[in-house]
């Protein structure tokens, strides 16, 4: 085993692999920064270039490219409030308010360092799971996945604190969005209105870009000022402080990383949900939940630490039994087959070095991207001082391209525009946006896994031990949220009473 760990590292450090990784990182950096055009699209386009390469070179290139997109996607989220990747939406919630207060440097420093820590946690989770990887993956069937989606949906509650009814309505709206498309069991188009474009459901990438990016662009257009406004100091400071913040709040980052790695394992869920669960959890455990959404450093660190960790988790079922957990791992699976590798026991015996090389690539590529990005932070943060009217046309082109790029269709641009409208309405009248996204992603999976569970096991799936454990966890989270909300309300009441008396 140790041989394989070392051999994997040495093969990754060979000049050829490192060069390919650097090219991958460069491409990943650029596509990560551009909204919408994300890891999966870039990997799909670059896949043909890997034809004929030895396996470790392929992964150095493709995986290196993939893992840095979450980090650089966060940069766009902080600076412009537009998620650079679908997994960077939670970063917008607190990262961008910080940029608007003129703290872009600190936010970027925090995001970069927490991303690195998160990536290491994800890679370690993958590395440590290798000896027990197959039994773990096979222990999770449709009933367990169903319960995990329920746990995810429960986080709608903690994401809606202070506006519970609105959060529930938005969550339901998300579930309704998830209903659109071909019914996964009966094969009947639902709410498709005769449009073939709607058969595959509503794409999550254009929804995320519109919902979170749209309002920011509109604000920038209307205010005609720069993102950081006139009041803020023109000096960019605080990158070092942001890095230190990561270690000061190490618990938040570590838990966010673990949540990311764990949720990354569930097929189909991925980073777009994991980020909000980590964010919701951080909000629930924070001493200052009221600061969330207004530039809270805990919130930002949770989002940053989470989205890089999920990559390690998503590799677990792919390596163990060839079950891809996300679009990008499905592309990696293809790269496996092209380079003559077979997921499954071979990856844990004869090709164990390749498996460990993936752990190393995840860690090394993330270290390199932090080193590369640090000197770029100041010039990037300066962009927040560029005047709105100059910035807006570029941002508009980017979001339109980003929405179009995933499926090459105009329809997704309309989805993005509609989501932008919803996003503007939400921001203006203070409705939470995260529950909508959670509902939209989880609704579909929740329905499919419930149906599969019942057709495979009848009602007996409820008695499975892991299902019971997860159900208890779900109820506990629900009660904890309820308790916290009541306590918070009581404290506030007491405080206001005190104020009245004094």
């Amino acid at each position, binding site marked *: 085993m140790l041989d394989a760990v070392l051999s994997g590292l040495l093969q990754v450090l060979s000049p050829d692999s490192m060069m390919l990784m650097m090219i991958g990182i460069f491409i990943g950096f650029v596509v990560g920064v551009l909204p919408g055009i994300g890891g999966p699209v870039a990997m799909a386009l670059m896949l043909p270039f890997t034809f004929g390469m030895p396996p470790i070179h392929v992964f150095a290139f493709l995986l290196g490219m993939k893992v840095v997109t979450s980090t650089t996607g966060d940069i766009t989220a902080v600076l412009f409030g537009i998620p650079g990747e679908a997994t960077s939406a939670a970063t917008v919630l607190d990262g961008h308010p910080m940029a608007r207060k003129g703290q872009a440097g600190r936010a970027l420093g925090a995001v970069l360092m927490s991303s690195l820590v998160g990536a290491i946690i994800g890679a370690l989770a993958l590395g440590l799971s290798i000896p027990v990887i197959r039994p773990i993956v096979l222990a999770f069937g449709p009933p367990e996945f169903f319960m995990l989606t329920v746990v995810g949906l429960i986080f709608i509650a903690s994401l809606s604190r202070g506006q519970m009814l609105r959060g529930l309505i938005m969550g339901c709206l998300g579930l309704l969005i998830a209903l659109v498309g071909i019914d996964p069991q009966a094969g009947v188009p639902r709410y498709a209105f005769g449009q073939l474009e709607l058969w595959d459901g509503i794409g999550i990438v254009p929804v995320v870009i519109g919902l979170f990016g749209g309002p920011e662009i509109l604000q920038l257009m209307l205010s005609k000022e720069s993102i950081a406004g006139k009041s803020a100091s023109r000096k960019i400071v605080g990158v070092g402080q942001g890095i230190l913040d990561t270690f000061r709040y190490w618990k938040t980052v570590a838990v966010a990383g673990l949540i990311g790695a764990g949720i990354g394992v569930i097929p189909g869920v991925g980073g777009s949900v994991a980020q909000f669960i980590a964010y919701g959890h951080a909000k629930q455990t924070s001493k200052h939940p009221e600061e969330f959404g207004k530039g809270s450093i805990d919130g930002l660190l949770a989002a940053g630490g989470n989205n890089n960790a999920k990559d390690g988790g998503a590799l677990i079922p792919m390596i163990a039994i060839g079950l891809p957990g996300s679009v990008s791992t499905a592309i990696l699976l293809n790269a496996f087959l092209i380079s003559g590798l077979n*997921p499954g026991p071979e990856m844990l015996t004869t090709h164990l070095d390749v498996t460990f090389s993936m752990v190393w690539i995840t860690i090394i590529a993330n270290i390199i991207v932090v080193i590369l990005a640090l000197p770029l932070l100041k010039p990037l943060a300066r962009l927040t001082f560029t005047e709105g009217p100059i910035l807006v046309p570029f941002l508009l082109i980017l979001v339109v391209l980003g929405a179009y790029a995933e499926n090459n269709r105009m329809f997704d641009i309309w989805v993005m525009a509609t989501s932008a409208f919803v996003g503007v309405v939400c921001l203006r009248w203070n409705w939470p946006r995260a529950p909508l996204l959670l509902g939209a992603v989880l609704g579909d999976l929740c329905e499919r896994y419930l149906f599969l569970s019942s057709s495979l096991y009848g009602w007996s799936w409820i008695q499975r031990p892991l299902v019971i454990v997860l159900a208890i966890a779900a109820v506990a989270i629900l009660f904890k949220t309820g308790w916290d909300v009541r306590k918070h309300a009581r404290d506030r009441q007491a405080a206001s009473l005190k104020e009245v008396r004094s």
Partner: protein
Amino acid sequence: MAGTFFKQAENGRAFAPAKGLSTLSLVAALALVPLTAARAADECAFFKDKTVELVVPFSAGGGFDAYGRMVAKYMGDELGAANMIVRNQPGAGGLLATNQTWAAKPDGLRIQLIAASGMIAAEFGGAAGVAFKTNGFSWIGRVSGEPDVIATGPDSPIKSLADIAKIGGERTVRIGSTGLGSPQYITARLLATVIETKSQVITGFSGAPEVFASLGRGDLDLFASSLSAAEAAEKAQTARTLWVFGTEREPSRPELVPLSEVVDAKFLPLITVQASVTAAGRALAAPPGIAPERLQCLRDAFDRTVASTAFLDESRQLNRPVEPLSGKRVAELIKTATEGAPKEYLDLLHESFTQ
């Protein structure tokens, strides 16, 4: 050039009446040969400096996409086009792109790699959203047409039909599938019919990898998938392949017995039609109504592409096996499959799509 000339000559003869061939018509046919050849040359020159779009009806990065890119890489040069580019147009399981290709201008500048078996099933099952007739496309040639196989779990006791019947005596036999109307659902339904025991098709899996995961977990008894998917699952130890879904053995896996030899002989017509639908595989087509000479240019360029060493080398290197078939043969295969389908088969398709 000579190759094109002779192929045109063959076509010239094919149009002549087989019986009562008079001297006059022979002279006329002979006179037509150089004319057609000259026109064909003109038609091929049409592609010079043009960009041909090869539409792939699924997302980039998948298996289907790999085949499309492999063909486009070499066929553009064989056709003499300035470029042949791949355009991914995913949506509605391939229906979106296929409908658009059906309605596209038949100039040969938009061609598509079609999941022929899925489209035949959708058309004959009366699926909503189908706006084409598979038989009407101008078929250029088949890239791959691997058979379907039937797999069970690695630890499953199933080795023969009798084992399945034994399970069926105790409880329902569970057959995995993706959603209704998918090609996998149709094979699953057929399988449920031919095993003649109490069985249930379990739908709702997101794709073959997820069904194999369930098979590996022991949740399911059977699953019919493409040979390559089953072989990947065998290596991942989530499946054990039992039989070929067809009437003939697969040369690369001679030990696998065809399903027709396992089940009752009365199911032979059902298995035969399904095997020929599957054999249409991944095939390249142009919109209907393309000028015959231009179609011939595309067919010739395709034939040269799939016979070239560079193409075959790349197919081996990428572990993407090809089984090329000429456009004419694909058209015949689809015609036979669609015109000779037994009523029971059509009913089953209908039920799969309109339930």
